């Protein structure tokens, strides 16, 4: 986890940066004037940083929440694996075409139990971001995920997926290899998996790219993440025919964890450290682990058949419509 001055600050986090700078200056002063005790000033400033973090995250607009989910210091999947599990063995390749670096997976030990971890991975540096294709998986990524899910199913191990993607990769080769089919197949197969499945949105959750590893007994969202049908930028450019409306699109899409929980489209919000997961990786991982374990315990109570039926039922209830009052329902012909 980067420490000041290596931390990066978003626009609305600027007041926090100012506080850090004040601390730096006070420390310099303290060095110069060793007779005066500055320690109480410093500790006061440090606690006001935490207050500021809290204050800022309490009043975020949906678009700022989107920005927070993309914070350059935000932990990605491998970070959570490192902090939450032991003995992680990464498994590569879809056994068909290639190894997609944007989608990773493998077995690990979570609190004494073997689990399968699958998810999108992003990079922190330009080079790594390119290698990970910005978390945008291709068909081989989704097929690799499915291969690993089947592997977990074979050995009766629970599956935990980490969703963090701006969408599936919209490119030439993705289309050639059936991006749509790969995602469709995953959704269909995930609904039928015999083992417990928990899906967590840890950053961005955009469209089919997210849902392609997002069908489970429990779908959780971390506090400062978003999950919807399209990225705010994509929505803006399609519906408003301009990318300038991304803030409005973010509002209209009602994509925050609070909205999604309110709609009943996700099951639970996972709390983050004050100010966001990027402030404390260890705490973020601990909070997440706790929620995963509780949920895992609960869904394990059911038999595979019950779990599958509950999954179908849960997603089957999603949607809204109204009855057309005047029209009669025509009788069904039986010829």
């Amino acid at each position, binding site marked *: 986890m980067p420490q000041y001055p290596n931390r990066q600050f978003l626009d609305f986090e600027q007041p926090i940066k100012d506080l850090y700078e004040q601390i730096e200056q006070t420390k310099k002063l303290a060095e110069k004037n060793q007779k005066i005790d500055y320690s109480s000033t410093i500790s006061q400033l440090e606690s006001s940083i935490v207050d500021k973090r809290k204050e800022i995250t309490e009043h975020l607009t949906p678009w700022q929440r989107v920005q927070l989910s993309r914070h350059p210091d935000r932990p990605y999947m491998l970070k959570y694996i490192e902090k939450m599990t032991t003995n992680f063995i990464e498994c590569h390749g879809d056994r068909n075409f290639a190894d997609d670096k944007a989608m990773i997976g493998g077995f690990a030990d979570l609190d004494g139990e073997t689990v399968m971890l699958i998810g999108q991975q992003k990079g922190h540096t330009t080079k790594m971001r390119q290698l990970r294709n910005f978390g945008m998986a291709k068909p081989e990524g989704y097929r690799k995920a499915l291969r690993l899910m089947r592997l977990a199913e074979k050995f009766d191990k629970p599956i935990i997926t980490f969703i963090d993607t701006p969408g599936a990769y919209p490119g030439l080769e993705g289309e050639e290899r059936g*991006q749509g089919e790969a995602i*469709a197949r995953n959704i269909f197969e995930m609904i039928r998996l015999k083992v417990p499945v928990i899906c967590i949105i840890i950053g961005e959750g955009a469209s089919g790219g997210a849902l392609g590893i997002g069908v489970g007994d429990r779908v959780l969202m971390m506090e400062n993440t978003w999950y919807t049908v399209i990225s705010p930028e994509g929505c803006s450019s399609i519906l408003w025919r301009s990318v300038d409306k991304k803030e409005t699109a973010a509002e209209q899409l009602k994509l925050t964890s609070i909205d999604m929980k309110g709609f009943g489209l996700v099951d639970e919000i996972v709390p983050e450290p004050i100010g966001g997961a990027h402030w404390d990786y260890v705490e973020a991982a601990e909070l997440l682990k706790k929620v995963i374990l509780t949920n895992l315990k609960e869904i394990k109570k059911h038999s595979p058949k019950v779990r599958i039926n509950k999954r179908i039922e849960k997603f089957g209830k999603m949607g809204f419509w109204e009855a057309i009052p005047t029209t009669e329902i025509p009788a069904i012909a039986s010829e």
Partner: protein
Amino acid sequence: MDNIFTGLEEDAHQEETGRRSWFKRRKKGILTTTAEKKETPEGLWNKCPECNFISTTSDLKEALFVCAKCNYHHRIGSDEYFDIIFDEQVFTEMFDDIRSVDMLHFTDLKSYQKRLDDIHSKTDLKDSMRVATGNVNGEGLVVACMDFEFIGGSLGSVMGEKFSRAVDYCIANKLPFMVISKSGGARMMESAFSLMQMAKTSGKLSQLADAQLPYFSLLTDPTFGGISASFGMLGDLNFAEPGALIGFAGPRVIKETIKKDLPPGFQRSEFLIEHGFLDFILDRKDLKNKLSQLITLFRN
């Protein structure tokens, strides 16, 4: 209106095309009962967007809206497909008692509710999918067909619910199921609810699979996004009309991403079959007979 062509121009046109005649005997059209259809080309004359061949609307209708010269399949709606598929154009529409509502108060350039009200006042369509059951050469079938005219055939809660009820009906009555897709993808005005329809419909298909009932997916021009990334590509058999544009990401988005021109024929049915994602490409005129063949083969 009638005098688009003087006689001379007509002769010249005939020579050029060599196909069409003024004095062609007109059989009683198989689509005679469905006058004034939406999505059917308006007016008396119709120009093929592919080859500019000009034909009368009634001739085009008789040819199932397929260009006589270049086999271009015009985009048609659920009314036309139901008429083409079902015996004597007899079918029963089902689950047409629900419609979309703007629960999220979604407003882009205009509000979602306004959009819905506008379409409801302009057409008889209640949503982007209609479900009907009837016989195909004597074989029972449930067909769910999209209407592109209704917000681009987009996948929203109503489509998801109609799809689900259709599957339930198939299971209860042991009938095969076919979906005719024609859609731009998920309906953004329903936000995450539209996304979840992909999981909802897949769950129902899982039940249909357990009941061992066949599911056919017919992809028509255009089929994109949430449809191709869910039930569109999940058919026991996937087939498409010739030349249909089918894909996950739209051509414009891909072009912007890779910053290159797309190869000719990219994302067309022929491209998909070449890459292994379709079982066959099907001319509209063969649709009905092929369907009854398939139903028989799957059953016996």
